């Protein structure tokens, strides 16, 4: 073995994907089941991505009753998925704050990591003081993340629009939970395309290929 090899690390850089999942009471039944299925499939797909440049890491923050880190940021290949359960109100603002803290933490997401993707999925309206935490998420280091949002049924589109903070970006709207799997397939395609591109940091154009609604 040559000498330099002993002093080097892997070339692959983390590509963080942070899911903000609404698991409030209105998600009980088929919606939470669909969401769990979609998450498991997405993580399984990410785990199968072999690329030396980017390693996909996944974190899941849930908000239903309380906001909490359901899955800390972990390489997808090492992640054993645990289903989420639904119940309680919709403290979306607290989830925004947890996401901001995660992205500002350089131990969790070092500066060599590619720009994170933050995915918000909700079927309702926030029940806490969400605007100051959202402002935090849209400033500083966290503001550089790419953001996607899916609104199901009676989701508060105005809040999702403010989360995206870009009039050009579409909200993925669906009349019911059956499209959750489609949406996460799109997220999977977007992230894996980024991980395999010449520059995994480059943001990809967002189009809605599933005709949700």
């Amino acid at each position: 073995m040559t000498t330099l090899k002993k002093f080097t690390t892997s070339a692959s850089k983390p590509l963080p994907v942070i899911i903000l999942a609404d698991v409030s009471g209105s998600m009980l039944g088929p919606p939470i089941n669909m969401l769990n299925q979609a998450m498991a499939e997405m993580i399984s797909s990410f785990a199968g991505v072999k690329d030396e440049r980017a390693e996909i890491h996944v974190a899941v923050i849930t908000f239903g009753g309380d906001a909490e880190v359901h899955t800390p940021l972990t390489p997808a290949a090492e992640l054993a998925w645990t289903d989420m359960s639904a119940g309680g109100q919709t403290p979306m603002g607290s989830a925004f704050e947890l996401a901001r803290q995660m992205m500002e933490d350089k131990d969790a997401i070092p500066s060599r990591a590619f720009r994170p993707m933050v995915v918000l999925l909700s079927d309702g309206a926030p029940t806490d003081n969400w605007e100051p935490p959202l402002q935090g998420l849209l400033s500083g280091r966290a503001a550089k993340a790419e953001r996607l949002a899916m609104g199901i049924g009676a989701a508060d589109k105005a809040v999702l629009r403010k989360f995206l903070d870009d009039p050009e970006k579409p909200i993925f709207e669906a009349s019911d939970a059956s499209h959750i799997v489609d949406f996460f397939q799109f997220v999977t395609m977007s992230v894996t395309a980024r991980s395999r591109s010449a520059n995994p940091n480059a943001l990809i154009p967002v189009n809605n290929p599933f005709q949700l609604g």
Partner: protein
Amino acid sequence: MPRWRGFGYSGLGTEHARLELPNQDAFDLRHYAVGDLAVVCDGLGSKPHSELGSRMACRAARDAFRYWGKLAQSPPLAFISLLHTMWNMRVLPHDPRDCASTCLCVALSGGRMVIAQLGDGLIARVRPDGSSVLCTPEREGFANETASLGGSVSAADWVLTDEDEPEPGSCIIAATDGFSEIMNTTHLTEICHWLRDDIGPLDTRSRKKALDKEFGALSNAQRGDDHTFVLLWRST
């Protein structure tokens, strides 16, 4: 009297070789009567004249240092002001935005060490007792986002430090991100001492050959980007 010695190396990234692109990194190491200067620069791959930009950044640093080093206690800001001015002139007639490059300088003069870093990469120091210290803080953003000459930058985008010249027996390394991002910094001391003790004594040709072999033994992904460094050490 203890003096600074050193050498630099730059290798073409495998991704650039595949795309038939030139090495967009550059380095320079100069020993003047007024002091010593080490520079490494990484031209931004997305810009059409980044190869020129990185080479001219090295020259602009040299231009700036020759004036700046003559005046005792010149402020570091004066060094980067001169550097910006000279770089903007040297890349003419091209638009500076098309020549964007990072720029990492170590200027040793009059018992001082001034470090000036704009953009990605690493400058670190190893003390005579073997402890190591990163001279510039980890930056704020994410991968492939870098401040650069030719970008929209102000003095606040530079990391500037001004401290006493390191004592005899110290090493300083400056590296572009093609090397710094694969470097396990927990081994910083071993890397610097290996380069100083095993590679440093070789003649220029043998040194290049040895380092080509060392980098060539890394994976394609590890050496995908151009990889460049300058090592300085102060004799005891």
